[in-house]
């Protein structure tokens, strides 16, 4: 069973994603902040991470940097944000994200399909 970790502070989005990914057969791990995410990643070693950018204590970019500094972890990270500006995109890519998605573009099922494609190595 594939493990997906969702790092997102919005409780509603977390619920929507959990419902959809669990139906698609994933084991869903939920963290509501980057800080919790870091320790959780080390303990649980997910197969893929869905990462929000705007979070209170440790934002998405800080999380990516922390993960990079800890070189033993090598999990693909998909950055999900409602910011569509070029700076956010560039920052995410240079910080090591495999893909950057605009949250509002995807319904629950569409996100599951997209993550499936990414995990199969299609459209990065």
């Amino acid at each position, binding site marked *: 069973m594939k493990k997906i970790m969702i790092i997102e502070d*919005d409780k*509603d*989005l977390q619920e*929507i*994603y959990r*419902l*959809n990914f669990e*139906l698609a057969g994933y084991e869903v791990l939920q963290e509501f902040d980057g800080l919790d995410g870091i320790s959780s990643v080390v303990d649980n070693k997910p197969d893929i991470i869905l990462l929000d950018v*705007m979070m209170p204590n440790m934002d998405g970019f800080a999380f990516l940097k922390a993960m990079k500094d800890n070189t033993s972890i090598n999990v693909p990270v998909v950055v999900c944000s*409602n*910011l*569509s*500006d*070029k700076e956010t995109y560039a920052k995410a890519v240079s910080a090591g994200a495999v893909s950057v998605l*605009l*949250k*509002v*573009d995807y*319904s*629950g*099922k*569409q996100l599951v399909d997209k993550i499936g494609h990414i995990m199969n190595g299609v459209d990065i």
Partner: protein
Amino acid sequence: MKEILTLIQNLNFTNLDLLSVGITIAAIALLGFIVYISNVKSITSISFLIFCTVTMLWSFFNYISYQTSDPESYLILWKTVIFLGFWHSFSFFNFLYVFPRGKVVFPSWYKYLLFPYIVVLSFWAFAGDLVFSGVLINNGSLTPIVERGIILFTLTVCLLIISSFVFLIRRIVISKDVDKKPYVIILVGALLTFVLLFTFNLILPALFEITRFIPLGAVTILPFSVFTTYAIFKHKTFKVKNIGSTLMAFFLCTATFVEVIFAETPGQLILRVGIFLFVLLISIEFVKNIFILEHLTEKLEDANVKLQALDKLKSEFISLASHQLRSPLTVIKGYASTLTDGVVGDLTDKQKEVAQHIYVSAQGLANVVEDFLNVTKIEQGGMKYEFAYTDIRTIVNDLASDMRIPAELKKLDFQTDINEGTFMVNADATKMKQVFLNLIDNSIKYTKDGFVKVWLHSVNDDKGESADSKPGLKYMKFGVSDSGIGVSEETKAKLFQKFSRGEGAVMNGGGSGLGLYLAEEIVEAHGGKIVIDSEGLGKGATFSVTLPLIHV
């Protein structure tokens, strides 16, 4: 009169006294000129100019009244000095009364009592025997015969000066700390001036019998003039180039004035007076314009800075607003799709339909946000496209499956006619998808019943000739045809403007009014064309986009 003129023309300019008086007069004239030019309409500048002018005249006549040995000239000069003395103290009083206001309404006592009083007394002293009635010749030195009118003169002058100080001190007391500074500066200048005046004209002669400094009256006024000019200009930035131009104009005026004094014939005098006045007028205009230019430039720079800040603020606001609007929309879409996809259990058909409506509406709102963001980028010239080889067919297929739902919710017949093969275009996939989405969305919105057809063909030129797959094909054409309300001939061009709506727009809510404006911008940036075909109102319409293909 002639003796005085000769006296003036024969002045020895290497005399140190004359030099110091001359320089002081020039300095005071310059200060008055500068202050006046900087704000010709203000009663404060005008009053200061008058004060400086009277000071110059008073200083000059005060000096030369000590240079003559001719009794008649002596008497006239002394009477002139007294005459000017009245006006000198009055102009001092007047200046401190008006400072720092731009406009003043003079009270009745000022206009009908004080002013006439000064006029009457000063002319009486000049033309009559109010103060001096004659000259005593005493072993070659001259002294004036003083009448009782001197008391009136002294009283008047003292009252005027004391009142002036009272005005000044009152202003200092009643104004707020931050406003006190100019008044304090003027007060210091005035005090210095009067200390010097009393020392030179009263204490030294009376107590030490040193009368030597009396002709240098001009120098005593200098502190007041300098400090006052400083107070007036303290808050204004004074650019160096302006000072240069002002000085230039000033020296030109002085030179032409000096020419007037040294005119030898009446004819020459008239000519030189004419030249002087002409030069003076031009100088005033010239310097005034320089100041106006500088002032306007400053204002423009300020406005520019404010505009840039506002622009930045607008960008940040739109960014933030977009993000804040998208977050709840994501949640609405997420939950609605969770319902329709049966993730939390099966729904009845009706329940599914309801959930789909919610989803479609949320998507509509997300599109509006996207449109706003894009339009802002275009307006700020910051619309950047990420061109890449894109298969348009994939985009159209995805959209067709997405847009089937809202079409079928309206009970419309949703058709597709998408040719086989790849349609590779050098395009920004996200932006182009937005264009196609807007077109399909519009069709659905403006079609009450009937069909909406999404099609994708290759054509061999961009005039819209459709053809089957042939080598050498150059363009692709994407289109949306419908049986909707159609477009009249007049409206066709207008639809591409911002916030325009076609006929029947009132029938439908939603939409940003920017879709077609954006579509045209984006399509043209891709080297393509967007066209509206319609036989008229009520006869449906076809919106098509032609784009150049690349062959891989």
